């Protein structure tokens, strides 16, 4: 069930200026058109690895980075790679929905405007398409000009997803996207991922083991900056190979 490798992480390590070693020699494959899950107790480095894939860590005080991250075989972790282009190819949805202080419409077109797209028709089409993809169209199509912060939490998060989808990325990263949301909104987002995965590659850090088990095609277990185990989702949660993994899944620690 392996499929194509979309992102290859090779011996990747990362250390912050305060000496904490966030990640240690991670080697891992992210598979195309699948839902890839990074899970584990907090502090395990999952978010850090996630953000490394679109180089958001560049904004923090990272003092040492080793290894490589390859997107479609190309090393995107090297300093000379165009970071702006990378972030359009690899989008991210954060834990707290952060809508920009603009209308719903402009929130979605923001990324395209940054890229220089000005043609009204293209923008309109992108808005329609991404709102439909993120299952938000029916709820907001008649009030696109209203400020985005008037939406509910679940709607805002789906808006954040639509915002990313507008750029038609290849990979979508999600960092605990449903941690503040009610079960219905959570279910909607999980369903959206399943529908879209034929066109996109998903990498998600879930906020609970249950969510991980629900959505994972592939799963990787992280503990204190180390990759403990990596395998097919179903197998990982039914019969994990490593005792630490098993202990975490069954709730013996966390």
């Amino acid at each position: 069930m392996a499929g194509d490798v979309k992102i290859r992480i090779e011996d990747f390590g990362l250390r912050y200026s305060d000496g904490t070693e966030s990640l240690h020699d991670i080697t891992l494959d992210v598979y195309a058109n699948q839902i890839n899950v990074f899970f584990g107790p907090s502090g395990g480095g999952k978010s850090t690895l996630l953000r490394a894939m679109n180089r958001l860590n560049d904004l923090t005080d990272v003092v040492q980075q080793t290894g490589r991250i390859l997107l479609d075989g190309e090393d995107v972790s090297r300093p000379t790679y165009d970071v702006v282009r990378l972030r359009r190819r690899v989008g991210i949805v954060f834990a707290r929905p952060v809508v920009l202080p603009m209308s719903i419409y402009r929130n979605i077109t923001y990324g395209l405007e940054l890229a220089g797209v000005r043609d009204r028709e293209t923008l309109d089409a992108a808005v329609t398409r991404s709102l439909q993809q993120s299952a938000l169209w029916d709820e907001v199509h008649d009030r696109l000009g209203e400020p985005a912060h008037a939406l509910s939490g679940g709607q805002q998060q789906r808006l954040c997803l639509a915002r990313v989808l507008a750029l038609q990325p290849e990979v979508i990263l999600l960092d605990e996207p449903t941690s503040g949301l009610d079960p219905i909104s959570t279910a909607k987002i999980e369903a959206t991922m399943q529908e879209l995965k034929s066109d996109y590659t998903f990498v998600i850090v879930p906020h609970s083991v249950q969510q991980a088990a629900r959505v994972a095609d592939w799963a990787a277990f992280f503990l204190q900056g180390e990759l403990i185990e990596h395998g097919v989702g179903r197998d990982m949660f039914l019969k994990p190979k490593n005792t630490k993994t098993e202990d975490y899944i069954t709730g013996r620690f966390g």
Partner: protein
Amino acid sequence: MTNEHEEQQKRSLSWLEFLIERAIQVSGVSAIALVVLIFLFLIKEGAPAFFKVPLSSLFAARWYPIESYFGLLPLVMGSMIVTIGAAVVSLPLGLATAIFIAEIAPDWVRDILKPFVEVLAGIPSVVIGFIGMLVFAPLIRVALDIPTGLTAFTGVLLLAWMALPTVVSVAEDVLDAVPKTYRDAGLALGMTRWQVIWRIVLPAGRSGVLMALMLGVGRAIGETMTVMMVTGNAARIPTGLRDFFMPVRTMTATIAAEMGEVAQGSPHYHVLFAVGLTLFVITFIVNMAAASVVFRQVKRAERMLA
């Protein structure tokens, strides 16, 4: 968007961005350049004073430029009396007002009071000097039965009042910075609100109060128009308490009053610049002291929270 279009857009965008970001950097550094520039020019025009006028006469007690008497002492003392007096008066008043606004006043009073303190900050000094001269000084003359109302005392009162917005706003920040937990602890121990303020909040904000004082001093020393209009402009050395109620002259008023009539390049001209240089250095020192208090306070706060 085709890749080629993207590349072209990116190239022209990054060009423009580069220029803009450079301009921003230059703006940032300009502050340093300006301070240095001001200092250099004051030295350029002020230093000749020390060559054209013998040092001993600069430290003499007589300021009478028409006859080439350039004794700076009366001016310096005039500035000091007025400044220290203003600081001494404005600190308790400003502190009290800040306490009133922050701790005592009901919300509706606060909402009226704060904008009014800001209004005070906006009144031009020439207007305050004007009213001081026409209304306040005669009042003082009558009330204290002295020959003229244009005195150091008048200057102190008006200056203190003008420094208040600065003192009040700094004091307010200081009081706000004291954690609520301190106050709650005091109340829980059964202290009255006043005891909490007097014994806990104020001591906790000690360094901030010091900074408010220094900023008030800085403000008062630099004031020109008000002192020029109400302190009588007599360049005498005050020798006793009585002289507090007599006219004096500050360094700032001297520069403002005499610069217009001075021949460029004359000793008088250079001495006035030297006075300006002195003022620059004094305010520099006061401001550095205030700034170091701030930095030290920040460090202490970081240590406490770490």
